[in-house]
């Protein structure tokens, strides 16, 4: 509870307990629990799409093989890039815990750059498929391929927006409440690792099977 924030004037913002400091019996601060719950729902979201893939594939007379026309090399590169971005974000959080905002920002920026490279590669992939006449409506494999990688891509974009916010206007929080800022990066990082985790499964299932 920061007495000075209130004395500084303006509206007294309602103080929610355990926003920054963990509640003793659960050992968690609120956003940590919140993001894990959200990730649980995301598991069910992507799970439903995986289930759809299984159902459609097992019921199909014929099913094209992704490796016959998809760009495995580019996708492998993308996998490395996304894993790299996971490392950079967890290193960013570690530097923030050490009190080093500058290094934290560098690593967050690295994460964003990796993410953007991923998206650019995906754009190349998609346009290549379109130019070869392969669209979502062409067959069910392509339909599920575009839907799953597209939804995954939207999640990456969402993450990029969040990190850009924390590099930009959100960075003001570090000056007044560094612990809270660090927690926010931790929470955003958890989301980011999940997005990486989904890709780790998507890649072999769509491209190599």
């Amino acid at each position, binding site marked *: 509870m920061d007495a000075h924030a209130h004395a500084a004037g303006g509206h007294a913002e*309602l*103080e929610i307990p355990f926003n920054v400091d963990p509640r003793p019996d659960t050992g968690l601060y609120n956003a940590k629990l919140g993001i894990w719950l959200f990730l649980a729902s995301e598991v069910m979201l992507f*799970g439903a799409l995986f289930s759809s893939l299984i159902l459609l594939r097992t019921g199909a007379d014929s099913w094209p093989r992704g490796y016959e026309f998809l760009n495995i090399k580019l996708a492998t590169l993308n996998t490395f890039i996304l894993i790299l971005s996971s490392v950079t974000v967890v290193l960013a959080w570690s530097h923030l815990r050490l009190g080093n905002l500058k290094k934290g920002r560098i690593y967050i920026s690295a994460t964003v750059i990796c993410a953007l490279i991923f998206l650019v590669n995906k754009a190349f992939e998609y346009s290549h498929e379109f130019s070869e006449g392969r669209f979502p409506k062409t067959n069910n494999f392509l339909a599920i391929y575009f839907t799953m990688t597209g939804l995954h891509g939207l999640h990456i974009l969402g993450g990029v927006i969040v990190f850009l916010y924390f590099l930009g206007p959100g960075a003001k929080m570090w000056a007044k409440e560094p612990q809270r800022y660090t927690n926010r990066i931790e929470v955003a990082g958890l989301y980011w690792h999940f997005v990486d985790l989904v890709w780790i499964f998507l890649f072999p299932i769509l491209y190599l099977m």
Partner: protein
Amino acid sequence: MALRRQIRVGSQWMYADEAHKALREAIRVMKDETDSGQQQPWIRRYVFSTDHKWIGLQYGFTALLFLLLGFCLMILMRLQLGWPGQPFGVMKLLGETRAPGGILLPEAYNQLGAMHGTIMIFLGIVPLAVGAFGNYLVPLQIGAPDMAFPKLNMISYWCYLPGGLIMLASFLAPGGTAQSGWTSYPPLSVIASQGQTWWLVGMVFLITSSLLGSVNFIVTIIQLRAKGLSYMRFPFFVHAQFVTSFLLLLAFPPLEAAAVLQLMDRVAGTSFFLPSGLVVSGQALTNAGGGNPLLWQHLFWFLAHPEVYVLILPAMGIVAEIIANGTRKPLWGYKSMVFATVFLGFMSFVVWAHHMFLTGMGTTISAFFQTTTMIISIPSVIILSSLFISLWGGSIRFTTPMLFALAFLPMFGIGGLTGLPLGLAAADIHLHDTYYVIGHFHYVVAPGTIFAMFGGIYYWFPKVTGRKLNDFWGRVHFWVSFVCINGIFFPMFAQGLAGVSRRLYDGGMQYAHAKQIAAQTNPFMSICAIGLLVAQIPFIWNFFYNAIKAALGHRDERLGSNPWEATTMEWAATTSPPLAHGNFEVMPVVHRGPYEYNVPGEAAEFIPQHQPDAAEPAPRGGLLPATAVAMREN
């Protein structure tokens, strides 16, 4: 060598006496600022409020309006069913394309049916039960200052309202609104007109709202509960909302995925749900094919079954609160009820395909789902039985809320029991997609959940507004509704057993086997429906009259802040606790269970949950006034 006591404040360790000084200063400054009239602008306070109480009221008003709209759609349907093909002046409201000359067209009937279900479930009951009652009461009942994420709460409401408006806008789409049932089965829904796309987009907004809300509820209940409030001291209402939130969190995403897939089918030309070789009106479709309509059904019902428990659990929570309070004794079997609720929530994820027994299932899956469905009836019975037994030996106060809560019990009993033959495949062959099903689920939701909602409104109205709803008109509302609602839905069981299918725009008159029973029962049921509509008029008047009077400042001073003499903590906060100031001037500490009524050996007739072990009874007028006085003097 006394240790100088340290406490942790924020992220720092401070010496306790220094921390005390800092805290006192903070409170003084806070009171200064708010007392000097520095308040949030109107739009932050009332439109984009982050206060759970106001958001709860926003949800409540919006949901009640949607419920009324869904009800009116049903009235139009019942006019058609009672007197098929007859012109009605009120049908002309639907326009010439839907009801030329005031006679409802079959396509229009389908639109009414699909939207009645959608609006009642997704725009009406869940927002009312969870968004309104849950939002307003849960932080108060657990002694928290607000939800864990107030801004997220605000965003939840502002995803719900646009979603609802998009659903309404779909009525204006060319070809009309969604007309493939609230279940939107493909291939019909994929080839349906534009309104279906709007329905899908609206659903995405509503699902997002639910997901954000459920995260908020779960974190709030786990993290923000007051000191001393262990899980087994929760009011049952909180347990119900807790489990409900888990259902919303984990069951909605597959429907979101399915909605995306159906949108892709409709807009991007994919064939997720379209099988090969489909011919529509003599024309073969040109899509790639290879899709599976059953995929939609699995994904849809994966949500929609837990959804029905989302509809009933908060209602059970409300009924439990009213019954404990109205019998002046603790709930019988509280522990069993809690475990039954958790078990029910878990099982609700493994029963969904009992909605799909007639889709060509193999014996393995059929046996599996029949077994799980029979098992899930057990926790429901435990909860209902406990509520019934709770009445035994009670000193029952037959207030208006109590009437609704008492009626809930046998009504839910009928609804639950009629579900059993539906859960067994052999009987379901005969009953699936008949009026028996409609009777079954309406019993659970209408004289079940909606009666519990009414009871909750009558019960908590004084908490929110400081006025009680008029008791005489409340009883009129109850009795006329109770009689009419049974008149509408009970004959449906007979109709279903006789083989009258659901979703027939003429109520079965075109089928020889159904004609007689349809002609005998439908007009009677429709008259009861009109009676039910009339019964709501005193309620609507009662509600708005008293709400507006309260808003203008006309409180009932005789009521005090605890008119029902209840023990749970929402009654400890002052009546209509002010917005954006937290709920309690001093955060309560819980010392006892939630239903300490007539405790043997205690002098007081009831002991509030937060009251410490002291000789004096609960202070009249709640916690706030005495403490506020103390702080002003400080």
